[in-house]
């Protein structure tokens, strides 16, 4: 069997491939599925931002101090707390996971970097986001809510 040189091989393949689609991966079956995923992801992101903000305040840190402590960009921290469209980097997720003692897998889901495999986290996120209040210092109730949420995320 004659073996083509790499150049010959590529030219042959490019000519054959020219009018083809090449993608491999699952079918996206319905636009409605995508739309419900987008609504769900906003709830998760809101809970993610709230979690970070309350944790930081609970530890009496300004955003600058927290960003420095985590060794991440201040802009990224502010975007996360504001539930911005920006998705954090995997490195940031790991830093948060270590600091907050929450499994990185759960944070990947909350931040929108991974898909939730069940709806429970979405339901709990909605409850958490609704119950937590944007006050300067955490009240004892907020402190308890934060602890319950962290406890839930740490559960298997």
């Amino acid at each position, binding site marked *: 069997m004659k073996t083509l040189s790499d150049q010959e091989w590529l030219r042959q393949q490019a000519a054959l491939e020219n009018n083809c689609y090449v993608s491999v991966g699952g079918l996206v079956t319905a636009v409605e599925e995508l739309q419900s995923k987008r609504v769900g992801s906003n709830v998760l992101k809101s809970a993610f931002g709230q979690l970070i903000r309350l944790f930081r305040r609970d530890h009496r840190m300004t955003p600058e101090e927290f960003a420095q402590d985590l060794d991440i960009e201040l802009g990224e921290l502010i975007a996360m707390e504001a539930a911005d469209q920006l998705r954090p980097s995997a490195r940031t997720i790991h830093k948060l996971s270590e600091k907050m003692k929450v499994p990185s897998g759960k944070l990947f889901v909350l931040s929108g970097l991974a898909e939730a495999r*069940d709806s429970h986290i979405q339901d709990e996120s909605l409850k958490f986001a609704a119950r937590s209040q944007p006050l300067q210092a955490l009240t004892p109730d907020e402190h308890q809510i934060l602890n319950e949420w962290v406890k839930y995320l740490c559960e298997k």
Partner: protein
Amino acid sequence: MAGEKRTMTLNLTDPEMRAVEDLCAKKDVSKTTLLRQALRLYQLVEARTEQGEKFFFEDADKKKAELMFL
């Protein structure tokens, strides 16, 4: 795939070595490949278990039996 590799010595019992050899023959792979596959599978199952998933076998009648992964 990561370029640089390091060597590790592995001590196995006779039954363990036989299991390695049998699986290598069945899968048509080397011992190194087999053990690297085992490591990848272990890490994958561990990661998904940590995320709250469970690892099941399913028999022909579609009955699920959970595998407790240590």
